[in-house]
C-alpha cells in the first residue's frame, strides 16, 4: 500500500494505491485500469469511462489535458510531503520576493526602480512577447530592493528581473 498526497487547485487529496487495482480516495476504493501508451499519453479507466490523457511530468508536477482542459497537479509521497512542510516553515522566515520573467521577451519598461514603494498587484515592469505588452505585477506590498535588468534587455524565461522586500 503506497500513500500519496496530490495537490490540485489548492486542494490536497490523500490517495492510497492498494496494489490490487484500487485507488483509495476519500475513504472510497475506486477500481481503475491504467495503460501508459507513450511517454506523454496514458489511458485510465475509472468510473466506467476511459480517459485518454496527454500529460507532462516534471518532478511530480503533472500537466494533464482532460476533455480538452488543462489540469495541473503536484504529487508527493507521504514522506516527501512531511519534508516539504519543514522546508516551507523555514522559508517563510525569509523575507522578500523575486520577480521572475514568466516568459521570454523584451523588457519594455521598468516602472519601479530601486527604492520605490510598491503595492501588491501593482505593475512593476512591462515585458513584450508575441507582439503583446505584458504587465508583471508585484506579489506583495514592499519596496524594490534591486533591479537586475535595464529597459531594452532581452530576458529569458525564469530570469530574475528584480527583488521586492
Amino acid at each position, binding site marked *: 500500500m*503506497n500513500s*500519496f498526497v*496530490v495537490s*490540485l*487547485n*489548492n486542494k490536497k*487529496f490523500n*490517495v492510497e*494505491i492498494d496494489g490490487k487495482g484500487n*485507488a483509495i*480516495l476519500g475513504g472510497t476504493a*475506486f477500481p*481503475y*485500469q*491504467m*495503460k*501508459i501508451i*507513450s*511517454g*506523454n*499519453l*496514458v489511458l*485510465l*479507466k*475509472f*468510473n466506467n*469511462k476511459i*480517459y485518454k*490523457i*496527454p*500529460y*507532462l*511530468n516534471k518532478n*511530480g508536477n*503533472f*500537466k*494533464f*489535458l*482532460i*476533455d*480538452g*482542459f*488543462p*489540469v*495541473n*497537479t*503536484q*504529487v508527493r*509521497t507521504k514522506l516527501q510531503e512531511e519534508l516539504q512542510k519543514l522546508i516551507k516553515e523555514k522559508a517563510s522566515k525569509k523575507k522578500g520576493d523575486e520577480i521572475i520573467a*514568466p*516568459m*521570454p*521577451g523584451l523588457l519594455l519598461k521598468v516602472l519601479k526602480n530601486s527604492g520605490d514603494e510598491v503595492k501588491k498587484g501593482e505593475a512593476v515592469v512591462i515585458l513584450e*512577447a*508575441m*507582439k*503583446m505588452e*505584458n*504587465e508583471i505585477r508585484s506579489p506583495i506590498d514592499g519596496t524594490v530592493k534591486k533591479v537586475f535588468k535595464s529597459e531594452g534587455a532581452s530576458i529569458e*524565461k525564469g530570469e530574475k528581473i528584480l527583488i521586492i522586500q
Partner: protein
Amino acid sequence: MFKKILIANRGEIAVRIIAACKELGIKSAAVYSEIDFNSMHAALSDEAYFIGPPAASQSYLNIDKIISLAKKIGADAIHPGYGFLSENPVFISEVEKSGITFIGPSAKSVEMMGNKTAARTLMNKHNVPIVPGTTQTIKTIDEVKEEAGKIGYPVMLKAAAGGGGKGMRLVNNPDDLQSAFDRAKNEALKAFGNPDIYLEKFIENPKHIEVQIIGDKFGNYAHIFERECSIQRRHQKVVEESPSVFVDENLRKEITQAAVKAAKACGYYNAGTVEFLMDKNKNFYFLEMNTRLQVEHPVTELVSGIDLVKEQIKIAAGEKLSFSNKDLTLNGHAIECRIYAEDIHNNFAPSTGKIEYHSVPSGPGIRIDRGIETNSVVPVYYDPLLAKVITWGKTRYEAINRMKRALAQYQILGVTTNTELFTYILNSNDFLNGTFDINFLENVLLSEINGLSSTEISKQTEEAAVILSALLKQVEMEKLKTGVGYNGKNKWVEQKYE
C-alpha cells in the same frame, strides 16, 4: 496563371495559402526564419527558403530580402497573407516595380484606406454612413468644443493615424474635454509620430459587423455576406461567425451594398473587408476597411462555398471574378474560435514552448486551419495564433454544438492555450441569444471568469486527475527502483485491461 507564388508569411495563414496553390497547380515557395526551420509552412510548400534571424524585422518584414529572393527563384507573384507586410503600401509598390504581381489590392487603395480621416471623407462622399463627427483633424480646443456640442456627448477623440486603441479618449462632458484633448494628442504623437486628432460620436455598446467584399481588375464587385465579430478582447477578435443573428435580410442588403460602395470608392480589387459598428437600433457606421485577407475568412468560405484565397490568386492573375451575387446563397452557419497561446488565468500572458502532443478533432462540420502539429515550437517572436477551429452547421445551434465537441477533442499539450475561454463564451446566455456587443467579453464575461483562479472541473475529472497523478508517480518510483522504462515489462505499464 502564375507558375510560382512566394508566400511572405508564416503559421496557419501560410499553410492556408499553400493549400490554395496546391489546388490550383501552382508551385508554392515558403520563406522561413531561423526558428521556423521546423514549421508546418516550410515543410508543406514545394520550395522553402531561409530568410533570416527570428526577429520579424530581420526576416518576415524584410522587404529587400523578400523581393530579391522572389526575383532570384523566379516567383511571378507574392502573397502577403495578413499582418506583416500585407498592408504596407511601400512593400506593394516595391513588389510591383520589380515586375512581380502582388496578390492584393493596389498600393493606392491601401493608402486611401490607411488614413482614418481621409477614409472618412471618402466614405462620406460615397454615401457610406460614417460615425457622426469630423472628417478633418481638429487643431484647437475651441473647435473641439464646438464640434462636440454639435454631435452631443459622449464623444470620442481619436488619432487620425490611429489604431489599436492608442490616442483614443472617451469624453462624457465638456469639462473633461481639455485634458482629454491634450492627453490624446500627446499619446498619438508618441505612438504614431502624428498628433492629429478627430472627433466622433461615441457609439454605446455597438456590435462589430463586417462585410466580406471582393473585386476584380475589371471593376466587378461582389459581397459575400457579413461576419459578426463582436467577441473581442483588447480590439483582438476571438470568436467570429457568419451570418450575424442580429442582421435580417433587409439589413443585410443595406450593409452589404454600403460595403460594395466603400470598395468601389477606393478602386479596390482583391478580397477585402469593410468593418462597421452597429448600434442597438441597427444603425451602422463605417469603421475601417481591411485591405487584405482576414484571419476570419473561413467562416465566409463555409457559408458561401467560395474559396477566397483561390479567388484572390485568380483575380491577381487577371481573371474575372468567377461569380456574382446572384450566384450566391447563404448556406447554414459557421463559427470560428481562435486558439491563442495564452493563459487566460494569468492575465492572458502569452505562452511559448514545444507542442509535446497535438491531436485535432475530426468528423462532420469541422475545419481546422493550423500552423502547429506535434513537435512544433511556439516562439516568442510572432503572433500567438496557433490554430483556428471553424465549424459549420445547418443552423447556428448546430454549429455551436459542433464547436463544443471540437474544442473538447482538440488536445494541445506543451503550451497553454485559451481553449477553455470558448466554453464560457459558447455557454453564456448573451452569446446564445446573440445579445452580445463588443464590450461583452471584456466587461461581462472576463470579470466573471476572473473569479476562477483555474479551470473549473467536474468532481469526476478531479478524481481522475488525482488518482492518475498517484499512479504515474508510483510508476516513476518503480522505474527508478528497477530501471525498467516505459516500454519494459513493468507490471504497472503492461497491466492487463479487464
